[in-house]
């Protein structure tokens, strides 16, 4: 046999290179961590203008089917899919029976069935799990012929609308097929930066030409480094950090993402555990954390209460360019999770003061009710 350990490249790799990207390996892909201007400039540009993110490494799973598929998917996801309108999207998770999270995802009801956007590192495993749960009764395609480009920031709507007329009519968390040069793009108004924006699914062969058009209209390429600071300021979870197989949506403080209709009746994978945790509570919960001063407390930093009692651990921590200060998220024992609780963070052997704080750190600007 021949084992291929080569890193994969997205269809925008040449474009990244031409724009002086610094690359890192991420989930088996060679991805840009930043371009020449650096993470802080890229972050700020996205907040005030429009940033382009190559997220082609993420999984685009098409599952084809009608009402039967909706019934089967409701046995898996904690969503009211029967009442989800066509072209509407929901944030959700794929769980095991213990409500441990295999992946977090965005699912959109489309004419042909469903489109699910999955994390790069989880997509193959997700595909196996979903195939098994659906029993091979529905056609499933984990796309590798399509790139996924995110355009994020307040100017994104005018930039994208000048290339794809009509996208300004989309509400946040909705999408549709749009024709572009004799082919179909699937465009959703969504993203993971806390800004208004879009994600565009496009055939690999056209991805570079399309992305160059966005650059010509004034948008700029942004790397994974700024994507991380943007999502953290927006209080959004990253799989492998805030979420993993040992955490449940209730512990992750994501109860809002579970449809109310499903909370009363259950019947989805992990529903018993979820109901138990809603009634009985959890020992730990995800919170926002602001270190005092400029100290940065990164992932795995231990969290203490005044005494030497460890009460939790940080899952993501960085410098927030729009906050102009350090920010973090982590899990703490429930009794210490109230806003403004004073905690201590152990960094390089010393303990530094910090506070539990409200999420998000940065207020969102999503567009609702355009039509």
């Amino acid at each position, binding site marked *: 046999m021949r084992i291929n350990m080569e890193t994969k490249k997205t269809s925008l790799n040449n474009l990244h290179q031409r724009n002086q990207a610094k690359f890192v390996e991420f989930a088996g892909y060679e991805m840009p961590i930043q371009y020449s201007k*650096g*993470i802080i400039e890229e972050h700020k540009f996205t907040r005030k203008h429009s940033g382009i993110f190559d997220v082609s490494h993420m999984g685009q799973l098409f599952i084809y089917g009608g009402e039967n598929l909706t019934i089967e998917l409701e046995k898996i996801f904690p969503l009211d899919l029967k009442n989800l309108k066509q072209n509407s999207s929901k944030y959700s998770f794929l769980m095991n029976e213990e409500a441990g999270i295999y992946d977090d995802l965005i699912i959109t009801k489309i004419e042909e069935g469903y489109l699910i956007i999955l994390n790069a590192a989880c997509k193959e495993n997700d595909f196996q799990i979903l195939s098994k749960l659906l029993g091979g009764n529905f056609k499933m395609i984990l796309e590798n012929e399509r790139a996924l480009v995110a355009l994020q920031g307040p100017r994104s709507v005018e930039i994208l609308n000048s290339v794809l007329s009509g996208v300004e009519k989309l509400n946040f968390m909705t999408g549709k097929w749009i024709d572009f040069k004799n082919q179909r793009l699937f465009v959703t108004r969504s993203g993971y930066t806390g800004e208004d924006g879009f994600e565009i699914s496009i055939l690999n062969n056209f991805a570079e030409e399309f992305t160059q058009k966005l650059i010509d209209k004034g948008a700029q390429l942004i790397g994974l*480094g700024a994507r991380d600071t943007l999502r953290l300021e927006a209080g959004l979870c990253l799989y492998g950090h805030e979420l993993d197989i040992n955490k449940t949506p209730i512990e992750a403080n994501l109860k809002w993402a579970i449809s109310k209709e499903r909370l009363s009746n259950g019947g989805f994978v992990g529903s018993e555990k979820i109901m138990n945790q809603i009634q009985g509570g959890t020992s730990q919960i995800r919170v926002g954390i602001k270190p005092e001063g*400029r100290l940065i407390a990164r992932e795995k930093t231990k969290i203490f209460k005044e005494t030497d009692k460890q009460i939790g651990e940080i899952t993501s921590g960085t*410098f927030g360019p729009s906050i102009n200060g350090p920010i973090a998220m982590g899990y703490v024992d429930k009794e210490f999770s109230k806003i403004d609780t004073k905690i201590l963070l152990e960094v*390089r052997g010393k303990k530094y003061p910090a506070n539990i704080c409200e999420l998000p750190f940065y207020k969102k600007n999503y567009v609702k009710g355009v039509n």
Partner: protein
Amino acid sequence: MSEVKFSKEHEWISLEGDVATIGITKHATEMLGDIVFAELPEKGSNVEKDGTAGVVESTKAASDVYTPLSGEVMDTNQAIVDDPSKINEDPEGSAWFFKLKIKDNSELDSLMNREEYEKFSKENSS
């Protein structure tokens, strides 16, 4: 202005009399990216050659700053603690880290001149 020397840990050293001013090189800041946090040694403390004498954190990661010389910390640059982005702007000038009263002149022998450092950093920057 005295001659500037360089260490393999990407610090620069400018010597005047027995006082060395130490900072991190432009090459180091380019590798680190945007610097968002700096911690310096305490004034009056004694540091040993190759020991840690501070921390810089960029948006990507934390890195220790080593002292290439032994000595007593005479002064530290509070301006870079208050605004760490100054380190990216002027790493080999106004954004110095600390000044040392050096103990042992022979420690200077292991340092590189600019030409040697540039060759070294080119070979070690992959």
